[in-house]
């Protein structure tokens, strides 16, 4: 070659193109390729045509790009093909199946739980700039009320004065009976401020939102249909817009169709204008939920500070109703997803993470066992010139292939689990409809799969890469490598057992807590009770009140006449139902001109209240402790029944409350006629609820619940109940017809589901860990067969041999369980908020679980250890 025409820069430029090729290819052919290029370059230069040089560059670069890509593809296909063949080898099939199944379980579980976590806690809400949307509530720390609804006048005062919000909108649940065009139907309704949809940045499906005129008292009667009702009752026809429908007997014009999923609810059938009365409404009557959008520049903190100023002013201005009442501002998701649910989801996620780790450890252990068997194969490959990098690459591709198949199966599992889950998950779960295997979930599943491959694959690969060729070939790859790996394998088994133990202890704690919850004394007998709800129009005057009372009496009379009915009663809210109503009550008369509000009267107690008929509490099976139930001759709006605990707090030191006067926040006073046994109104995990009972003769709630005690199966009474109502009021519909046992079961559906899922994960982790122990012991038996055979031949009794093999397995099991107990003790406090009446560090629970797991570990070690006794010295030694 002509030295003059050699251009170092051109060679260097070409050499840099070579980086496109796989490393080994570059090493092998790079030099010759550069030389070949140089020769052509020199020829082109000699030809002296600049165009020829440019053309040469172009064609050489295009050629390098295309062939480098093809080479990479070829190698990958080769490696994948080899990995597939290796994994499918007869001797490897058991390993492959076990690994894939383990990974599929771990990854499938993790993907399922993450899709819940994502949908409920992480996915952006369907609002415009969801982070700017906040929930506002009233709070009364001095009465232990952390979050309460807001009164209409307070809402208007806040909206007028607060500059931190570009908009504030109020919502109130309303019940609505649809009639006129088809069978009467009761739908879930919400009365909302006109600009709610605007505030959320949520366009309507059709039509328009309410106008400010419609959102004012006495405004035009209009309604917006929710998507579900629109599709279900009106066939999804937009021709409904502008038409009139009958709601609670009143005609209203449909002006719009709202989306089904409004972020915080998916079942709203009907939207009505809130139309808050600007004055006259009681400032102490708190029943609105408030949503706001933070103004540009405002933050949660500035909004809170501003509202604090406003509520302090209102306290001074309206001490009767507002003393002690402040405001809270929180991200809207905190309102939708309670703290408890949040904690439950993270616990589930942690549990499935532990399961995945155990699965990884299991597969890593399988890999190590197999790697020992493969040392010879790898040694041969190395001897034939495969570089350590190449060997590691092969192993990594095998691992990725395993993880990939496991991940794909896991996704299939997760898809099936989610399809089943929507049926099992409590309908009260927020964002339930948005749970899906969507992009972010798939991305996480993909990353988890990669991380898993890394975790279970990196150790074996690194070890294999280090394999010394001579040792591997000379010793047949047995003892030397084994000795190095034994501690690692044992460590993995201990870690597995530790994780499984910790998870089991968590599961047992949750199960104990759930057992306690289910057996907690309720104060009433929930069996043989059917409940059904009924909504009547809001009471405006004495006539409607009397008419409604007459309707309810007639209904109850008809129901009592049904065969199998032993008693009936009416209430504004059943125990453990959806809602709670509460008010301040005091035994001390407020100073003249003031009421029993907030901090004004230190004796005041915040207590739940219910409106009931005289027959309601006896129907529930609540005992009368003192005095009497309501009676016909009671003057309406004067008599009151107290729960036992509330009576004791109001009238301490055994004072007799009967005939005494009590004073309420609403400015009224009542005479105590009876004391009823305590019951749990608000939750199985809550204390007995201090409750006051008003008589239906004083007031009726728009939606009342009928409770019926039956001699036989309560659910069988449903058709009779519906018939009874249709005979009296054909336009009305009963809804939420369910047994009280169902209501109670529903109130603990979240802890129940969580307990089952964590128990399932713990069981799987335990199974994997047991397999890990058994596998290790079995492997040790096989490995030590010659040694054990010699011992047997020298007269050692089978018992002693088993003992030796077993001893190691037992030591490992016990260390694992001990480490798990320690781990659980460390993490136990994380469960504290979810446990009812259970100490997260209960020694008995720890000891019992440890004992069971230790025994399981011992069993897992003993089963394969028995094989040691069956070793035939002759055969074993021959084999060697």
């Amino acid at each position, binding site marked *: 070659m002509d030295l003059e025409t050699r251009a170092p820069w051109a060679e260097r430029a070409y050499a840099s193109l070579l980086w496109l090729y796989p490393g080994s290819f570059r090493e*092998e052919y790079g030099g010759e*390729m550069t030389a070949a290029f140089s020769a052509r370059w020199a020829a082109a230069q000699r030809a002296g045509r600049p165009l020829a040089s440019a053309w040469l560059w172009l*064609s050489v670069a295009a*050629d*390098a790009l295309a062939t480098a890509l093809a080479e990479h593809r070829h190698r990958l296909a080769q490696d994948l093909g080899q990995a597939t063949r290796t994994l499918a080898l007869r001797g490897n099939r058991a390993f492959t199946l076990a690994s894939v199944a383990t990974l599929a379980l771990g990854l499938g579980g993790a993907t399922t739980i993450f899709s819940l976590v994502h949908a409920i806690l992480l996915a952006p809400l369907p609002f415009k700039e969801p982070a700017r949307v906040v929930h506002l509530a009233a709070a009364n720390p001095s009465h232990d009320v952390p979050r309460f609804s807001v009164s209409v006048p307070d809402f208007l005062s806040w909206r007028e004065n607060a500059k931190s919000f570009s908009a504030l909108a109020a919502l109130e649940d309303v019940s609505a009976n649809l009639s006129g065009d088809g069978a009467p139907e009761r739908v879930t309704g919400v009365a909302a401020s006109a600009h709610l949809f605007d505030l959320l940045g949520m366009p309507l499906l059709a039509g328009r939102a309410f106008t400010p005129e419609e959102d004012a008292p006495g405004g035009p009667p209009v309604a917006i249909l929710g998507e579900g009702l629109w599709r279900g009752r009106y066939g999804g026809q937009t021709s409904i817009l502008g038409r009139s429908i009958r709601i609670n007997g009143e005609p209203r014009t449909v002006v719009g169709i709202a989306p089904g999923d409004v972020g915080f609810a998916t079942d709203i059938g009907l939207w009505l204008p809130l139309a808050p009365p600007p004055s006259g409404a009681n400032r102490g009557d708190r029943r609105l939920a408030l949503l706001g959008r933070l103004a540009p520049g405002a933050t949660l903190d500035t909004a809170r500070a501003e509202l604090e100023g406003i509520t302090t002013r209102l306290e001074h201005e309206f001490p009767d109703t507002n003393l002690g009442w402040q405001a809270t501002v929180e991200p809207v998701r905190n309102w939708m997803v309670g703290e408890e649910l949040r904690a439950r989801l993270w616990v589930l996620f942690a549990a499935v993470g532990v399961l995945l780790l155990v699965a990884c450890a299991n597969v890593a252990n399988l890999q190590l066992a197999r790697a020992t068997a493969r040392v010879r194969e790898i040694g041969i490959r190395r001897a034939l010139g495969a570089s350590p990098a190449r060997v590691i690459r092969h192993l990594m591709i095998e691992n990725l292939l395993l993880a990939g198949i496991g991940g794909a199966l896991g996704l299939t599992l997760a898809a099936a689990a989610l399809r089943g889950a929507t049926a099992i998950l409590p309908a009260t779960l927020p964002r339930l409809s948005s749970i899906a295997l969507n992009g972010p979930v798939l991305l996480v599943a993909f990353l988890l799969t990669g991380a898993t491959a890394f975790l279970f694959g990196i150790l074996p690969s690194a070890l294999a890469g280090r394999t010394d060729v001579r040792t591997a070939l000379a010793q047949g790859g047995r003892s030397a490598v084994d000795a190095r790996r034994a501690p690692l394998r044992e460590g993995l088994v201990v870690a597995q057992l530790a994780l499984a133990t910790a998870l089991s202890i968590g599961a047992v704690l949750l199960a104990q807590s759930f057992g306690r919850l289910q057996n907690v004394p309720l104060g009433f007998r929930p069996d043989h009770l059917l409940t059904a709800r009924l909504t009547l129009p809001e009471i405006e005057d004495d006539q409607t009140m009397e008419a409604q009372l007459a309707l309810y009496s007639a209904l109850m009379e008809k129901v009592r006449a049904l065969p199998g009915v032993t008693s009936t009663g009416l209430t504004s809210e059943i125990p453990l139902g959806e809602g709670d109503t509460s008010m301040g009550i005091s035994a001390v008369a407020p100073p003249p001109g003031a009421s029993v509000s907030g901090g004004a009267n230190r004796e005041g107690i915040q207590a739940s209240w219910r409106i009931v008929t005289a027959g309601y509490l006896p129907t529930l099976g609540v005992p009368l402790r003192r005095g009497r139930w309501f009676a016909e001759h009671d003057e309406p709006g004067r008599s009151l029944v107290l729960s036992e605990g509330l009576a004791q707090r109001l009238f301490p030191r055994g004072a007799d409350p009967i005939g005494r006067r009590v004073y309420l926040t609403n400015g009224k006073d009542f005479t105590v006629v009876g004391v009823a046994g305590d019951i749990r109104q608000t939750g199985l995990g809550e204390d007995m609820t201090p409750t006051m009972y008003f008589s239906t003769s004083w007031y009726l709630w728009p939606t009342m619940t009928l409770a019926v005690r039956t001699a036989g199966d309560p659910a069988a009474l449903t058709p009779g109940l519906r018939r009874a109502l249709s005979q009296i009021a054909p336009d009305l519909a009963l809804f939420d017809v369910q047994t009280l046992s169902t209501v109670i079961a529903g109130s603990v559906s979240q802890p129940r589901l969580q307990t089952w899922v964590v128990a399932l994960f713990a069981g799987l982790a335990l199974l994997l860990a047991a397999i890990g122990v058994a596998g290790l012991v079995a492997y040790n038996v096989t490995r030590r067969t010659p040694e054990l055979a010699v011992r047997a031949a020298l007269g050692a009794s089978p018992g002693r041999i088993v003992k030796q093999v077993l001893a190691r397995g037992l030591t490992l099991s016990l260390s694992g369980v001990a480490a798990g107990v320690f781990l659980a003790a460390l993490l136990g406090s994380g469960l504290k908020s979810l446990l009812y009446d259970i100490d997260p560090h209960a020694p008995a629970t720890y000891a019992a679980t440890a004992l069971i797991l230790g025994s399981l570990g011992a069993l897992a070690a003993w089963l394969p250890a028995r094989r040691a006794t069956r070793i035939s010295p002759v055969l074993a030694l021959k084999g060697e």
Partner: protein
Amino acid sequence: MATHSDDPTPASLLPLPTATFHILIALAEGDRHGYAVMQEVAERTGGRTKLNPGTLYTTLHRLLEQGLIVELDGREVAANSDERRRHYRLTPFGRQVAELELSRLGDLLNLGRRAGLSCEGR
């Protein structure tokens, strides 16, 4: 290295890519190193076919894997260069493949001729 149980049969490799066939033809006459193959191909085709280094060496690599050629022991040090060059030799299997391709092309040629096509039409 590439001795798989599913080694290719000669027929399964046909039709050969043009570059591959050229390389086999160049090696059919005698052992050559990579650069010489490139020159040979260019010469034989009157400069019409110039193999780029990428195509040449990835093809040689593939032919080695498939057992159509082998690398000779001992490497010659090229004049004026510090590069050691590998020499390649056609294997009997490679020759078989090349001949099969040749007869395939011959058949094609005959078919065309019988159909009245002329091969003087360049």
